[in-house]
């Protein structure tokens, strides 16, 4: 059962990572990165590492995408 869960979580992380890489627009990439962060959280949780999962959730799914979005906004503002 838990082995199946790990395989499912790993597959989701692989799909999520590929999606982030193949998203070309950085503003959209921030969103896919956030979803990828959630999938990684799921993987860490399945691997019985709740402390790491919590760190990943707050940093990978919330903090970093917000910084990316703000940076993209600033760059677009400059080029306009």
């Amino acid at each position, binding site marked *: 059962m838990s082995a199946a869960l790990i395989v499912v979580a790993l597959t989701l992380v692989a799909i999520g990572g590929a999606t982030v890489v193949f998203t070309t627009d950085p503003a959209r990439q921030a969103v896919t990165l956030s979803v990828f962060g959630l999938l990684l959280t799921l993987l860490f949780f399945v691997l019985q590492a709740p402390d790491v*999962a919590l760190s990943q959730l707050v940093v990978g799914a919330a903090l970093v995408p917000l910084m990316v979005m703000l*940076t993209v906004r600033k760059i677009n503002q*400059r080029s306009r």
Partner: protein
Amino acid sequence: MNRRARLSVFGLGAAGLAVLFALALAGMPDFGTSDHPYRDLAVPAAVAHDTANVVSSVNFDQRALDTLGEEVILLSAVVGATALLRPTPHETQRPPAPGGRVLDGTILMAYLLLPLTTLIGLDVVVHGHLTPGGGFQGGVVLATALHLLYLAGRYESLARLRPLDWYVWVEGSSAASFAGIGLVGLGLGSGFLANVAPHGSFQNLLSAGTVPILNVVTGGAVAGGAVVLLAQFLNQALGTTPQAAQKSAG
């Protein structure tokens, strides 16, 4: 160096890495076995200091020096980002333009979740030595809670709720207190960052000695650091205009 030479250098490096990586993987213990030499040492050490959350014990007791290093890394990252992102003479500060329309549902959710998230952040920090979590995770949750105000479209109220100087002081003094608590251990003759406080009773709020104290201090440092860091990004994205853009507009 032409493309061919670059590719061959890359190929050489990639092949070397692949060989070393394969050797390292071959030498690793099997996935999912119960053979964990480090766990066998870490768990009794955590229980000896009455720390229920072994991960917290590793982070703030057994390897507290590493966490101090991480805290200094965060501090330097915040200082570096603040120095890089400060408005230059070529940019003008302007009051942020009132944002577009925000959905009523988003505003409601943001206001509902603000107190809830703050509470969860405090809970994660305070119970770091008992349940999963700790100063780092809780600190970031606290910082994110504050930024729900930005989601609600109220950048002004975020700016008002965020006297930045305070967060700068919280960040700096918390990081310094971490080192200070370490020096107390040194002064008492037990060694730098040794767990010198009374251990209390296992699985109680007052247990694990210095671990909860260091958790709270780390929570302050991380929350302050994340708020200061995000404030620089927000200020750059919303509060400053490059001169060039203004000229072309006017």
